[in-house]
């Protein structure tokens, strides 16, 4: 419980930063921090494998990809972003606050309905593997197909449309 009490506000703060920070790279780095803290949360909860995978995939790949895309696209100035913030915030909050309300309402209802087991629980890698390839075998295959398709698709998308080198005649 104590680690949870420490982690939860940290995660929320980092997530808030990721949403709030005007400079895109800061937002992306804070996203990486949020995801890393999430991974620690999983470790604390006893899902070691999931936590490490989360760290590897999210921090090592997704966050880095996002950061890298930011580098390549060199997003525009933040002053503009800050200037139009009040207006966008109104619409944003108008849409998201009801969602939050509904969610929290459901959480409160659930608390009254459900009972929580508090015994320590962990999942061994062997157990996970066995389940993965027996109960969830079709899902694994589907994900495998999806990932292959994604790899090919991403490669096709990202490919330069015909390598073009600048020549004097361009100008």
């Amino acid at each position, binding site marked *: 419980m104590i680690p949870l009490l420490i982690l939860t506000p940290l995660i929320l703060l980092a997530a808030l930063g990721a949403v709030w920070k005007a400079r895109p790279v800061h937002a992306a780095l804070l996203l990486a921090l949020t995801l890393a803290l999430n991974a620690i949360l999983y470790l604390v909860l006893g899902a070691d494998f999931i936590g490490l995978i989360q760290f590897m995939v999210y921090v090592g790949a997704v966050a880095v990809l996002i950061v890298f895309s930011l580098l*390549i696209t*060199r997003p*525009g100035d933040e002053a503009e972003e800050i200037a139009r913030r009040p207006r966008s915030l109104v619409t944003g909050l108008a849409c998201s606050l009801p969602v939050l309300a509904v969610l929290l309402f459901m959480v409160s209802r659930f608390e009254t309905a459900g009972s929580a087991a508090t015994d320590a629980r962990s999942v061994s890698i062997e157990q996970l593997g066995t389940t993965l390839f027996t109960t969830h075998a079709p899902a694994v295959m589907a994900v495998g197909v999806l990932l292959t398709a994604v790899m090919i698709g991403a490669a096709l998308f990202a490919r330069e449309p015909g390598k073009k*080198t*600048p*020549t*004097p005649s*361009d*100008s």
Partner: protein
Amino acid sequence: MISDSSMLYSTPALETGDDEDQLLRVSLGPQHPSTHGVFRMNVVLDGETVVSLKPVFGYLHRNHEKIAENATYLSSMPYTDRLDYICPLSNNWAYAHAVEKLAGIEVPERAEYMRVILAELTRLINHTAFAGFILGDMGAWGSALMYAFREREKILDLFEDLTGARMMANFMRFGGCRNDLPAGWAMKCGKLVDDYGPFLDEMEKFLVGNEILLARTQDVGQLPKDILINGGITGPMLRAAGVNYDIRKVEPYGIYERFDFRIPLGEIGDCYDRIMIRFLEMRESLKILRQALDQLPEGDYIHPKAKIRNFKPPVGEAYGRIEGPKGELGFHLISDGTTNPYRYRVRPPSFINLTLLEDMCLGLDLADVVIILGSIDIVLGEVDR
């Protein structure tokens, strides 16, 4: 890439505006590990691809030409050492050659042989160091450079024995050389020439088949022949592209027509060819050295009537050029009959070879720029003068 010479001088003015924040403007130099001195390139990059490259030089400008016009003919001789400080003796010879042409001075036989020997040794120094430098530009942490310098030191020892200085030789005089070969010098030189072949074998084994070097240098930085000729490129760079132009053959000076040697010519003219041509040239230099050492006659090392003090060439004009290790090195002198030249002008091969840098680099990587610059083989002392 540029395909014909009509495009040569119309490199694009970079468009600004919408694209501006997508391009990266980088100033390579003047303090940069691989600009071979204080040289700067204003590079505009798209990602890592070069979109535009403007060389900026003059950081090492020493006013050589004007100083020479205000000093006696002899006083400029030590300054020529400092033009291309890798090969001072070639510079000495080029200047002496120009003055001798201007004043109509004869050079004794022995002095001519000494000059050939020294110039070819200088060529060895230059090309060996070149191989080391270009590997350094490629990031091969100095091994090749150290091997090159190890051998270079041996040649510099010879120079020290002969001229009294390792690099700033100040050795050639109008009508010969400053002093005679010390006893045993020719023998030492002969031994060096004998040992140099195995060293070149080792160096070639080290470099020529190296897959990374092949991948980095082949098809990088080549330009069509006519562009090179129009751009005034000379030396190994021009010969790597297959143009047979070597002043030792085209307009033989000194006694080069007496020696049996060949001019290696490449085909494509990329960085790899430039490296290879230099290796092959070194082999030819060794041949010349062998012959010159064998034929070295006795006699005067300087024309007996050569004047050291109060030297006044007759009124006139002369352009003397030699095949320096980097290309055509020429001195253009106008005399008004006084002790100082009226006009003194250097044609520095490094500088003129550098003019096509941007054309070679466009569309290539930042990493290629460094190699191409290395393959041109510049010395900033000569570029900036």
